[in-house]
């Protein structure tokens, strides 16, 4: 369940705003079947502090308000991110932490995008999977390593 402490709620919503701002900063690449969302690299954050799960959910929700696919992206895309972030927070080691966003997004987002556009399901799964893999492992994992080294002292109170 969500936090009762105002400070944590505010912090989570600002993490969400960060995700949404990064997504919007790289607008045309961020939506649709041929997406390459650099902000997905932030989905590794729950490994370091598990409360960020809800922050990412909110962020994805806000970012998808601007998506051309509207409601489908808002509901199912955000739920996919929620599931992925929860699994990441339970990841046993640092190398498995970026795996849930890759797998969950590839399989869930493809369901409605392939239904909508009529592009075959497995083509969509492989495309989204590859682009998520590049972002999460190419950028997310190094980010996680650096964050773990430098910012650990900042997270002691959250």
């Amino acid at each position, binding site marked *: *369940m*969500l*936090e*009762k*402490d*105002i*400070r944590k*709620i*505010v*912090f*989570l*919503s*600002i*993490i*969400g*705003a*960060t995700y*949404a*701002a*990064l997504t*919007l*900063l790289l*607008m*045309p690449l961020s*939506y*649709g*079947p*041929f997406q390459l969302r*650099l902000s997905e*690299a*932030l989905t590794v954050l729950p490994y370091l502090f598990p409360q960020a799960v809800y*922050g990412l959910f*909110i*962020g994805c*929700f*806000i970012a998808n*308000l*601007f998506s*051309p*696919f*509207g*409601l*489908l992206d*808002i509901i199912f895309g955000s739920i996919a991110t929620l599931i992925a972030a929860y699994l990441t927070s339970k990841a046993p080691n640092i190398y498995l932490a970026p795996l849930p966003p890759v797998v969950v997004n590839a399989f869930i987002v493809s369901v409605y995008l392939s*239904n*909508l*556009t*009529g*592009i*075959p399901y497995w083509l969509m799964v492989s495309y989204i999977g590859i682009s998520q893999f590049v972002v999460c492992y*190419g*950028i997310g994992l*190094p*980010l996680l390593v*650096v*964050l773990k080294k*430098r*910012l650990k002292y*900042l997270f002691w109170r*959250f």
Partner: protein
Amino acid sequence: MFQNYKSLIGYFLPLNTVIHNLNPQVKLICMILLMSGLLINYNLAIIIIYLFLLLVVYKTAKIPLSVLYNSFKPIIWIIFFSSLVHLFTTPGEPLLSRGFLNITVQGIQKSLILSSRIILIVGFTMLISLTTSPVNLVEAISSLLKPFSWLGLPVNQFSLMLSLSLRFLPVIYEEAERIKKAQLARGANFSSWRLKNRVNNVVSIVIPMIYSAIIRADDLAIAMEIRGYKVGGKRTRLKETRFLFIDLVILLLSLIIFIITFLL
């Protein structure tokens, strides 16, 4: 500094028309009805009815063609690709064949119907974003989610987080741009496509952003506590939305169209 700022309000176009002044909750419910109708059942007659409806609504909302073109630009390639796939992969009587590629009558029909369905769905969702400001949209979504709080879901906290994060989006966005410029001044190379540089770029923006998020959250939480904010308390709105007669008419109309979709 604010050159990209416009994209932050999404596609919202502040005008004063009937569609703009509708109750946002009603607009959302209508869109859910129409979209689920399109997703469940589609054929030529339904597509034509919906296209006509979409044109009428866009005309009423007085949305200029150039805005429409800009909002459809991101999905042109998707439509192109998906109609290509259907053109060549649908089995049926061949119209034209070169080697392993066959164009069939059924293929042409299917690709036309499917691409107009994508246009329709994007058109209806775009209509919401064009005529409702993000703040109103978030308020409508959180008030529609209210019933879920009976199931024990933290809807109140969720809507607080949504509106806070929407409120802080422009601030954070500005901050991200400022950090980007500061890193540029220190010699960062944002135009490079090499993976190592990309990683460095994202890391060099994300770390200062998380740091400032923590500081900002502390300040904001203190400010809220001083003003007596309590989690789970009853809250009132700055602007109450009203349910007028025209809202009821629109709601009934879209319900009728939804039912017609099933009968056709």
